[in-house]
C-alpha cells in the first residue's frame, strides 16, 4: 500500500533535484561578498524548512494516533521524525560550513536559525531513547506520540525565544547580503525547497513501505512456525499490532 506511487514520486524527486542543482550553479547569481560558498544557502535553508515541516507533520500524525488509536499513524510519525532529525543535523552541518566559509568560525551563536536548530535537534534526539526505554509496545507508541506533540509545540516557542534573545544584539550573519531576493534567486530557492520536500516525501514513503513489508514478513513467518517462535525482542521501533491491515 505504501509502495503505490513510489516510482512516480522518485522520478519527480530526481528531476527536481537535478533541476535545482542546475539552477544553483548556472542560473542563480553569485553573491558579491560571500562568493560561491553562499550557494550553500540553497541546501541549508530548504533543509531547515523541510525539517521543521517534518516535525510539525509528525506532531499531526501523533495527534491522529492518540485520537484514533491506530498504530499506523505512530509509524508515520516515527519515520517523519527520524528523517527530519537527519535533515536537522544536515542543517547544522551545512550551516556550520557556511559560517566557517563566511566568517571563519565553525559555530556562530549569533545566527538564530542555527541555534534554534541545535536545541531542536537535541530534543528530538531523545525520541528514540525514550521509545526504547518503554517496553510495552502500545504504551511506547502512546508516549512517543505525546512526546512528538509536545516537541512540535515546543519548536515555534523555541524559535521565538531564541530570536528575541538575539534580536537587538547582532544582525543575522547567514542571511543574504542586502534585503530582498532577486527573481532568479527566488526561483532557484523555490525549486530547491520543492526538491527537498519531494526528497523527504520519497524517503518517507520508501521507509514506510520497507518497514511494512518487513512486518508482514515477520507475521507470516510467525504464523508458519507457530506463535511460540515469535521472539519478543525489545525495540524502540514501532511494531504494528498482530492483525494489521495497513
Amino acid at each position: 500500500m505504501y509502495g503505490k506511487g513510489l516510482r512516480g514520486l522518485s522520478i519527480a524527486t530526481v528531476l527536481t533535484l537535478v533541476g535545482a542543482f542546475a539552477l544553483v550553479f548556472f542560473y542563480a547569481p553569485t553573491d558579491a561578498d560571500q562568493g560561491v560558498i553562499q550557494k550553500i544557502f540553497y541546501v541549508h535553508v530548504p533543509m531547515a524548512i523541510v525539517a521543521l515541516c517534518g516535525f510539525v507533520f509528525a506532531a499531526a500524525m501523533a495527534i491522529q494516533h492518540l485520537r484514533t488509536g491506530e498504530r499506523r499513524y505512530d509509524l508515520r510519525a516515527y519515520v517523519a521524525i527520524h528523517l527530519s532529525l537527519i535533515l536537522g543535523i544536515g542543517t547544522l552541518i551545512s550551516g556550520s560550513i557556511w559560517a566557517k566559509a563566511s566568517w571563519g568560525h565553525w559555530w556562530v551563536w549569533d545566527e538564530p536559525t542555527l541555534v534554534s536548530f541545535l536545541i531542536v535537534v537535541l530534543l528530538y534526539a531523545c525520541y528514540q531513547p525514550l521509545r526504547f526505554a518503554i517496553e510495552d509496545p502500545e504504551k511506547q507508541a502512546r508516549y512517543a506520540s505525546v512526546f512528538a506533540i509536545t516537541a512540535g509545540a515546543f519548536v515555534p516557542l523555541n524559535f521565538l525565544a531564541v530570536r528575541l534573545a538575539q534580536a537587538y544584539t547582532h544582525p543575522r550573519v547567514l542571511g543574504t547580503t542586502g534585503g530582498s531576493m532577486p527573481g532568479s534567486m527566488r526561483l532557484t530557492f523555490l525549486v530547491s525547497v520543492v526538491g527537498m520536500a519531494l526528497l523527504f516525501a520519497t524517503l518517507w514513503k520508501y521507509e514506510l513501505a520497507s518497514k511494512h513489508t518487513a512486518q508482514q514478513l515477520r507475521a507470516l513467518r510467525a504464523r508458519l512456525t507457530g506463535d511460540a517462535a515469535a521472539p519478543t525482542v525489545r525495540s524502540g521501533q514501532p511494531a504494528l499490532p498482530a492483525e494489521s491491515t495497513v
Partner: protein
Amino acid sequence: MSTVGALLAKDLRAELRAKQSLPAMALFAIATFVVFHFGLDRARLDGDLAAGVLWVTLLLAALLGINRLFVAELEEGGFDGFLLAPVDRTAMLVAKATALFLYLAGLELVAVPAFALLLDPGLGRALPELLWLLLLADVGIAVVGTLVAALTVQGRARELLVPLLALPLLLPLLIAAARGTAPLLEAGGGSLPLRWPAVLGLYDMVFGLLSYAVFDFLLED
C-alpha cells in the same frame, strides 16, 4: 475534599515525612553556588553572569525534584490506586504540578538568599521584579517538569532521560528568565523589559494547555 486536594495533601505529607525532594534540591543549589564561585573564581557577580548562574542552578536543582515526582506512584502502586478511583484523571497532573511548584518555591526560599549571600549580586532593589519572574518561571518548570516526569517514570534509564528531555524543553524558559533577570542585576540597576515576562507567560500557557490535553493518554492503558 477535592481530588486534587486529596492528592496534593498526600504528596506533601509523604514529602514532609520522607524528606526526599526538597532538602536535596536546596542543598544542591547551595553546593552549586559554591562550585560556581570556585569555577569562575569570582566573589561577586552581576548582570548577565549573575542571572545565568542563578537560573542555571535553579533549573538543575529542579531536575532533582522532577526525577522523584512520580516515583512513589510507580513503586508503591499509586497509579493503579488512582486509576481505580472514579475521579477525573487530569487531577493527577494538576496535583503533581502544584506539588512541584511548591517544591520550587521552597527551593527558592533557600536558594535565592543563599545566592545573595554567597555571590553578592546586589539583589535588594531587584527583588520585587525578580519575584515575578520566579513565579512565572516556576509555573512553566512545574508544568513541563510534570510532563517530562510522567513520560519517563515508567521506562528505564529514567535518571538519564529526565535531563535530556527537560533541559531542551526548558531552554526558552531559561532564555526568557535569564535575559529578564540580567538588567535587574546590573551594577547600576535596571528595569525588567516586558517582553520576557510575556514570553514566560506564553510558554506557561502553551505548555499548560498542552499538558492538560495529553496527560490522560499517559495514564490510560
